[in-house]
């Protein structure tokens, strides 16, 4: 029987993107419920590789990936596609780049 999955958006409370300086975009996935955080953390569903796949980028473009136990959070940072505000900028604050995370499928028991 296939493993049942739910979208990450059904488990996390906050999923957001934001500039971390003019050269990076940082993605935060935050959970109110520590059990849900641990479920996702330990599921293998949210990794450098799966996040890269969701964004259609190479895993090397993800500059850091943290499990932040003290905040029940997963933190992922990408190199910005272009320097903030440079010609061609599409999102000055980097605050609308979170959407591919919402649908990542997380296996649940």
């Amino acid at each position, binding site marked *: 029987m296939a493993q049942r999955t739910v979208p990450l958006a059904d488990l996390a*409370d*906050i999923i957001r993107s*934001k*500039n*971390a*300086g*003019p*050269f*990076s975009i*940082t993605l*935060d996935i*935050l959970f*109110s419920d520590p059990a849900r955080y641990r479920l996702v953390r330990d599921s293998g569903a949210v990794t450098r590789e799966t996040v890269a796949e*969701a*964004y*259609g*980028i190479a895993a090397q473009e993800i*500059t*850091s990936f*943290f499990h*932040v136990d*003290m*905040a*029940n*959070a997963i*933190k992922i*940072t990408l190199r910005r*596609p272009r*320097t*903030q*505000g*440079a*010609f*061609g*900028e*599409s*999102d*000055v*604050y980097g605050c*609308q*780049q979170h*959407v*591919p995370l919402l649908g990542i499928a997380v296996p649940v028991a």
Partner: protein
Amino acid sequence: MKQPITVLAPTGTLGYGFGTAAFERGMSLNPGVIAVDAGSTDPGPHYLGSGETLVSRLCMKRELTQLILAGCKAKIPVIVGSAGGSGSRAHVDWTVAIVREIAREHGLHPRLAWIYADIPFDRVRAAIRAGEVNDFEAGCDLAEKDVDEAVSIVAQMGHEPICAALDQGADVIIAGRACDDSTIAAYPIWRGADLGLAIHMGKILECGAFSAEPFAMDVMLGTIHDDHFVLEPGSLERRASVKSVAAHSLYEREHPYVQAGPGHELDLGGCTFTGLGDRRVRVDGARARATSDYFVKLEGVRRIGYRSISIAGIRCPTMISRIGEILEEAKRNTHRYFAPAELQIGFHVYGRDAVMQRLEPARNQVAHELGLTIDVVAADAELAHAACHQLSGALLHWHYPGQYNTAGNLAFPYSPSELDAGPAYEFSVYHLMKAGSPTELFPGHVENL
């Protein structure tokens, strides 16, 4: 430190507003200082480049008036960091002029200090030659050519220049570009608070009540004790929770535990957050260590030209089905028309991939309408306008196979269809420079109004 010190941060960015009732309640808790951040690189390179301020004079004056009246009444200092948005000289001078006007209109006589954060270009060139400039995140070394091309360069000051103004008895301090955390942390540090706790508290308070729930640009207070600090929103309608505060510790930064600032490195690895009642959170465990050399972060911009844009809607499904190829061909034609003049031409196609561009996973979904922004940057404003108009006109009357509607392809919401956006800038300096001392680069001035 003999007694706990309370810092009131009225909002996350001065000029973006805060609740009057929240502010009054906050002031009733007897803060020792009102400290607020007024800028960031977050709104982009325009403000440092152009000297235009981030918020309007109207909003700045209204909010500064509230802060200065309250500060004078309570006899506590008012500290503003990264004045005007970029914290450049033009922005400091603009803010200082507003403070003078407020003092005059209200018959106040505060001791006013202002601190510049502009870095002379020759100082940066000398540092490059001495090997004292390191890349921070730009991904390249800083060259003297980058300095030659810069319009403006500032550096983020730490708490020390602000403490120097406090030493001189300043009641109102208008600081140029400053590390956000340091603006808030300066007063407690000056009073003897632990560096790590003060900087961590500054990091949370610099965004006002963004660390509370529901979050907002509003009043937040932090009280620093010998070995911890306590956070509380000004408004009784908000609460600080372990979740909201821990979440905020991650905001806008890459590393969750280790964060470098002017002359120090902050380690949050041992932090704990504990709820106190319904609305307050206690934070323990931040550690700061002074770095052996004192580095400041430089921020500089260069002008890339002048911008004109055109905004249009596209509703016809036949045009939508061919939009990619049409835009590319029209762009090539415009480049040819104006050659040998150099143009930067870009399109934002809303409804396809304008927001996420190459990160967009859903770009192949077919929309029933598209929004198009045509973006042209050229060496001068006249050329940018001419090219933008030529391009929008070409797209308006573009002929393509299978076309039903021969009357025009673009629905313009505005007349004129082109908007001239003035000079355009980009970040070109984002590097660390070694300072001779924490105050060397940040000259302060004091005057009794």
